[in-house]
């Protein structure tokens, strides 16, 4: 059962935030007879409405009302992708695939900290995660 009924998107409380070079709004999605709409679809529809590309549109915080059929969330539309990368929090960029977080395990973090303890001052910064692998001189 893939009941592909279309979803209606309406925006409220529209505000142009010149300081952060973006437009922010509250988004109402009406989707009767269908489970909640994925954020990618919402971003595409908003991009069409505001005549931009979908990669500068960030939507989040969608909550479906009790009984279904309507969800409310927020959306931000940046002027350019550079501003988006600068101002948007990393986890939201990660959702769009524009940012990859370094996945250091706990053990590695603790080892790095212990290495840093041995050095004083600005040399701590040189003691990166990679410096754990000491060069093996083979003869």
């Amino acid at each position, binding site marked *: *059962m893939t*009941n592909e009924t279309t979803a209606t998107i309406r925006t*409220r*409380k529209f505000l142009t935030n010149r300081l952060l070079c973006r437009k*922010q709004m*509250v988004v109402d999605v*009406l989707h*009767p*007879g269908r*489970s909640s709409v994925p954020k990618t679809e919402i971003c595409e529809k908003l991009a069409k409405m505001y005549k931009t590309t979908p990669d500068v549109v960030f939507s989040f*915080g969608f*909550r479906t*009302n*009790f*009984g*279904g*059929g*309507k969800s409310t969330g*927020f959306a931000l539309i940046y002027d350019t992708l550079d501003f988006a990368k600068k101002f948007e929090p990393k986890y939201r960029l990660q959702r769009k695939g524009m940012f990859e977080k370094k996945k250091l395990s706990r053990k590695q973090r603790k080892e790095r900290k212990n290495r840093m303890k041995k050095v004083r001052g600005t040399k701590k910064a040189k003691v990166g995660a990679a410096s754990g692998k000491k060069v093996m001189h083979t003869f």
Partner: protein
Amino acid sequence: MEDEGRDVQLEFRSLIEEIATHTNQVREKVKALSQQIADDPPNVNKGLSILEVKYHAFLEYLIGITYGMIIKVNGMSLQKNSLIDLIVENRTIIERIRPIEQKLKYQMDKVLKAARGDLSADDPLRFKANPDLLVTKGEASSEEELSEGEEEDRQKSDSKHSVGTYVPPKLVSMPYEGDLSLAEKKAQKEARIKRHLMTSTLLQELKEEYTDAPIELVDTDDIIKAKQHKRAKEKQEYEETYMTRMPLAKADRKGVKRTNLGTELTSFGNFASLMDEENEDFELPSRKKAKNALKKGKGGKGKKGKMFKRRK
């Protein structure tokens, strides 16, 4: 052209004769009335002022009309005459008074009846509250004015249960369901569910958008619900202005669970059956089914493929 002229003349003559006879009748009646009032002037101090206004407006209107007729009979035109304003104003006043009078009609009739002495003391439709019926012999008291039927019931039940058995007061009428068959009961239940869904929030909001009628705000007597509603609204306002989602505290989550309606009213299936009536075998897109389908697809192909590779 000549025939038309003649018809108009004949009509005019008949109308003039009518006016003459009518004015004679009216004159006689007015004479009699004014004689009556001169002999015995009535006291209008404590009367309804709305009736006075109505009669004054009527009189002015009639005067205006007759004056207009005089002008017309003398062959002058009524255009750009302030008489028209007078007539229109009084006519509007009369028309506006009509509905107000309708509303007061019941009270006025009752008062007239009482003045004439037609209402007896035992008439249960008397317009006064009867404090003797407030407390009866051992039943819970009701503080509303009882109608005739309820009074009789009370007296009958009093005679039956005179010993002292407690009988709860029949204040709210319940529908009688004893004579319905199973199919009828089912149909009633479905009708009830449909009615509830019709007034669901989603449809209400859609309606609010597309009608021009003003939005109704409901005041409930339930204090707890009103407080909850107010808090929920405040939270929503905060979330929308600051574009954040606030997490629900533990107590609030429990409250939300308690106020949840039964699943039959809010499940997707029922709503969809309301919108799309041909689709009788509509099924919920349950997570279990989706998961199973996914597992089958992946597991089947993947496993087989793996086994093949290993063997090789």
